[in-house]
């Protein structure tokens, strides 16, 4: 009996103990899934498998991947011209370090996933939109791409079939908003990275006005496994309602910060206590940003929740990127809120007023509270304005909504800390020497 993998994303890296090159990747059966699909299967059949496997987007929003692929118009309905596949490798969500790992350690897995995805949607042009500061990822991906091109896996007549696809790496000029898929498309077109109006959604009108699918790195890396091992295998990998594995990460004052591929639906407690080795001595856990800076805080009362889309959402937050940031008891909740709002204010694209003007205003109010200039009524001002700016629809894109998630939840869970700042006219954490 063959035992199928339980770690389809990281097993080769673990076996090799580092970068998986072309030889190691092919030894482990790499590029077989793409070869079989492209030479023997049909695009609709591949889409069907990914849909049935219930793969959901790993870029933060969790949209079902196969369903999204199905929105790309087929045949004459697409009109004349290119179709595009774009890999969102702009990883810039503070606290997130999973896509970098995949690209630096197993670049061929991403290339193979992109080949299959391009075939499934009929794309003849594919781009990797890469974070500009990811120099090592760029080197390793470029070298893997050269090897794959030389072997005839990328370019004209892939695997000798009549399917051809160009794959190009675009290095970003650097701006968080470029991770938002419509801003990303403007950036890819060489413009300012401002979001576009939706609809039309990218599958109907994306890059250069043509049908385009944007998928996250980790999402695409899941595709080859689904084709080789099957839909049932993938669905059974997850513990609860969701399918597959997830790259979970922990940063902050734990004993072993890092990244682990685990069944999707593993509890927060297991990830922090077993895999990350628990909190460092002298530090107590107070807050958890479960999936990056733009997700609502959870607290110790949520430790036993499974890290899956539905459970974290039901608790009022989002699984987001699945890489969590821990706030320990030495960190001032007002100060960490300043840090977060500074990020969102700085990275606002400036297009709409509530975000461009509102975020710096909120940051300044938080600074006033932290530095002892807080007034009675300031917290109600924060509550009201954050709720207004955060309501989807009040701003042009979800950047501002994401910005308000950690603030509204900090005001809820750590209210007494905010109040203490105003009452005592300063930061109790600083006075304690932190």
């Amino acid at each position, binding site marked *: 009996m063959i035992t199928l993998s339980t770690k389809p994303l990281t097993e080769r890296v673990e076996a090799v103990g580092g970068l998986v090159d072309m030889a190691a990747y092919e030894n482990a059966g790499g590029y077989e899934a793409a070869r079989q699909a492209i030479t023997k299967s049909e695009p609709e059949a591949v889409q069907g498998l990914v849909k049935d496997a219930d793969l959901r987007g790993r870029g933060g929003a969790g949209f079902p991947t196969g369903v999204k692929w199905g929105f790309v118009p087929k045949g004459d309905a697409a009109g004349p011209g290119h179709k595009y596949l774009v890999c969102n490798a702009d990883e810039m*969500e503070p606290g997130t370090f999973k896509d970098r790992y995949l690209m630096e350690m197993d670049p061929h897995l991403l290339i193979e996933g992109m080949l299959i995805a391009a075939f499934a949607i009929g794309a003849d042009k594919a781009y990797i939109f890469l974070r500009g500061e990811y*120099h090592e990822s760029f080197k390793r991906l470029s070298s893997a791409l050269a090897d794959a091109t030389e072997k005839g896996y990328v370019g004209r007549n892939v695997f000798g079939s009549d399917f051809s696809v160009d794959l190009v790496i675009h290095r970003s*000029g650097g701006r968080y908003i470029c991770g938002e898929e419509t801003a990303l498309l403007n950036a890819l077109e060489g413009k*300012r990275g401002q979001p576009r109006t939706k609809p039309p959604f990218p599958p109907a009108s994306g890059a250069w006005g043509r049908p385009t699918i944007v998928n996250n790195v980790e999402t695409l890396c899941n595709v080859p496994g689904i084709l080789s091992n099957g839909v049932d295998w993938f669905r059974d990998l997850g513990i609860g309602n969701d399918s597959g594995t997830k790259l979970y990460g922990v*940063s902050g*004052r734990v004993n072993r910060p890092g990244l682990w591929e685990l069944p999707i639906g593993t509890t927060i407690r297991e990830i922090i206590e077993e895999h990350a080795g628990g909190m460092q001595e002298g530090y107590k856990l107070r807050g958890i940003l479960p999936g990056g800076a733009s997700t609502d805080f959870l607290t110790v009362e949520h430790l036993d929740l499974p890290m899956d889309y539905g459970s974290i959402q039901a608790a009022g937050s989002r699984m987001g990127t699945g890489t969590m940031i821990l706030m320990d008891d030495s960190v001032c909740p007002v100060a960490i809120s300043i*840090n977060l709002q500074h990020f969102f204010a700085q990275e606002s694209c400036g297009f709409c007023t509530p975000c461009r003007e509102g975020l710096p205003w909120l940051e300044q109010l938080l600074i006033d509270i932290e530095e002892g200039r807080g007034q009675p009524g300031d917290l109600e001002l924060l509550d009201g304005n954050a709720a207004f700016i955060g309501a989807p629809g009040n701003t042009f894109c979800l950047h501002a909504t994401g910005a308000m998630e950690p603030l509204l939840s900090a005001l809820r869970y750590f209210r007494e800390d905010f109040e203490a700042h105003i009452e005592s006219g300063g930061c109790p954490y600083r006075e304690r020497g932190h």
Partner: protein
Amino acid sequence: MSEVSQLIEALSVEEVDAIEAEITHLPDRESAAIEAMRIVQEKRGWISDESLRAIARLLGMPTEALDSIATFYNLIFRKPVGRHVLMLCDSVSCYVMGCDKVRTAVCDQLGVEMGETTPDGRFTLLPIVCLGACDRAPVMIIDEELITHLSADSIPDILSGFD
């Protein structure tokens, strides 16, 4: 010499070739704007007004339009920078792990503030958002090198490796 060839003169043959190679992957010339600026900046460190005009001419677009793109992006520099660009992550995981103390140590050691260049032109200091190495926080990149697990004490040694 015509105005066009003079402007193209401001770019090296290698730069023009590299930009033209990018254009072959794209449906039109303007779409290469960001890649083109990255290519020119790679050797020259920053995008001068002269470089900006030359790139805009090469891509067939107004200089002002290219400048509005240049100023949107964090990694395109419209001012001269030092021999080394030091970018220190100030996002949330690095904050929790003490990047404020590292920043103070860097600024004290070099005698300049974030956003400034040392008078000898050795370093430009810039804050940067999450570098995707949060499990090894606090971190920074100097030029293209990622340096992790920073502490205030480790700064003098690290900086002495860049002259």
